């Protein structure tokens, strides 16, 4: 009787202490999925998805409130990666892939106000006051922030032109 009581009490104590220790030591801060999803998103905080920045978008994705196709700058690779991560089917019906886009500064209209330069989340615009600005195509995510702030409509989005390094054969026509 005493032995049974003692052993069960000891067992309960040991397990309770172990659980208590684990709760402190292995504490999880927030939902780890949100952080992982946020790391996958472009991080330019452009807001094109309708959420306040990439953190908000990741939260919505984790809650299942947003479709995996929410991020235009991420493009198709991101959609596929997110669908694989969340184990959902990427629904691409009704999605038009406009192809890769980049910002362009129309040199005739640019007044060198540096507004786009200040707002660009990836430092893709080169410029100084009263100098015509230019875009580094390699760094531009086509988030469109520069188009919104330009007072003279000198910035716009254009399709990324093909070069010898990026051109490849178009999809053959399918005959049914």
């Amino acid at each position: 009787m005493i032995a049974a009581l003692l052993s069960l009490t000891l067992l309960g104590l040991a397990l309770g202490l172990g659980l208590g220790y684990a709760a402190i030591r292995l504490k999880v801060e927030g939902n780890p999925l949100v952080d992982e999803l946020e790391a996958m998103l472009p991080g330019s905080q452009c807001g094109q998805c309708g959420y306040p920045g990439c953190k908000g978008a990741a939260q919505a994705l984790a809650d299942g409130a947003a479709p995996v196709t929410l991020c235009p700058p991420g493009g198709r690779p991101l959609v596929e990666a997110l669908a694989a991560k969340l184990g959902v089917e990427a629904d691409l019906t009704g999605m038009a892939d406009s192809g890769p886009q980049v910002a362009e500064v129309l040199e005739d209209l640019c007044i060198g106000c540096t507004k786009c330069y200040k707002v660009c989340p990836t430092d893709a615009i080169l410029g100084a006051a009263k100098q015509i600005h230019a875009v580094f195509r390699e760094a531009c995510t086509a988030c469109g922030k520069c188009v919104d702030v330009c007072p003279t409509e000198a910035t716009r989005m254009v399709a990324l032109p093909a070069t010898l390094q990026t051109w490849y054969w178009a999809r053959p026509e399918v005959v049914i």
Partner: protein
Amino acid sequence: MKLFKLRGGVHPEGRKDLSAEPPIRVLPLPQRLYVPLQQHIGAPARHLVTVGEKVKKGQLLAAGQGAVSAPVHAPTSGRVVAIGDFPGPHPSGLPMPTLTIETDGEDVWDDLQAPADPFALTPAEVAARVAAAGIVGLGGAAFPAAVKLNLSRNSEVHTLIMNGGECEPYLTCDDRLMQERAPQIVEGIRLIAHATGAREILVGIEDNKPEALAAMITASTTAAAAGGAVKVIAVPAMYPMGSEKQMIQVLTGLEVPAGGRAADIGVLVHNVGTAYAVQQALRLGRPLISRIVTVSGGAITAPGNLEVLVGTLAADVVRACGGLRAEAARLVLGGPMMGTQLSSLEVPLVKGSGGVLALTGKEVEASSPGPCIRCSSCVRACPMGLLPLEMAARIRAGDPAGSVDWGLKDCIACGSCSYVCPSHIPLVHWFNHAKGDLAARERLKMKNEATKKLADERSERMARIVREREEAARLRAARKAAADAAKKATAEAAAAAAKQKLEEVTA
């Protein structure tokens, strides 16, 4: 010598008799040459000349940059009249950076420096001279030859295979070169062997070129007396015998592992034309500025082979062969199986251009594709042992990554599958599209990672600026408070002193 069996392959009509008979002619000097800065796989060359500068034949125009690149030399003497974009010999027809040279008709060589005895040079020196001469693989891929030499020296290549396959229909440039310049080719082969340390040297030539075989055997027996055994071997004529992996397999029985290189199994393969270019560079000091080009096809008046300077317009070459006698339904640069379709003849020929074909409608026999009937003709034809129908089905369904599991990366784009398909499905077009699509996705992924890093750095910087501003404001406030306190203290002291004085005075 025992030959090994090859899997798959097709037997297209050769049509080599059109251009095989007449000897190689030298093309008269054109008025202008358009020399692209990128004529090879790798980074484009960086130009060293300015507009208006006079150049001599063989002078260095552009230096290679990066690990895989090749320099470009002036094909003749003249004046540089433009540096800028010009439509290139590329299926897209996109412009590429090009040097335009107005020829002066004098054709004066620059000072050439050839070693007294090229065999006395160390292998590394031979490779360095091959690199300086701008030599690239002349079989079509245009991979810088010196890079291959260095790679094979580092990976201990035991067998050197010289590719005289020329399995593409219509093309006879290697055939004519071997018939007319066999001794130079054999010397070039021995130089390449010297540069790599290969013990066994095999030359594979298709048995539909008996004159070339005879010429090469004669030249190699003469060379064997001088040391260095070069074995010339007749291989069965079939397509794609001239492909590197197939030539290795038929001669040695070895198979290049998937995703590997020939050097991984101790073999180095070069084209016979490359061997000729190496001999010219090491014996005469001449850089690679010209090549033999087959001009053929039903629409060409007088087909034949021409020695053409790099940068000559395809139109000039066709004109030298009597022009077009019929309407060309298709213009092709290279062979009909793997060549590039051209939209116009106003593009320059480059180091890798082996042929210019003007095909009539009858030769092209274009037909619209039908559905796949799963007859598996493509499976039997594929020389790499792949299942083209399965690969194409996955790509068509928007799953190019799935086709990689079926061996898309091992596809050599030889076009045998498209050739045999009874439904005329452009299978190789699908595969080329999928390879490009996958590369584009990879590029986008890398770009997204890079821009994410930029965005993170920027937000960090913005946070730091705010932090520093607050810090500065706090410091300013503290300094102001200290100054105010000091002022107050001085004022109080002064007041106290005044008070004391007043008391003294009153007392």
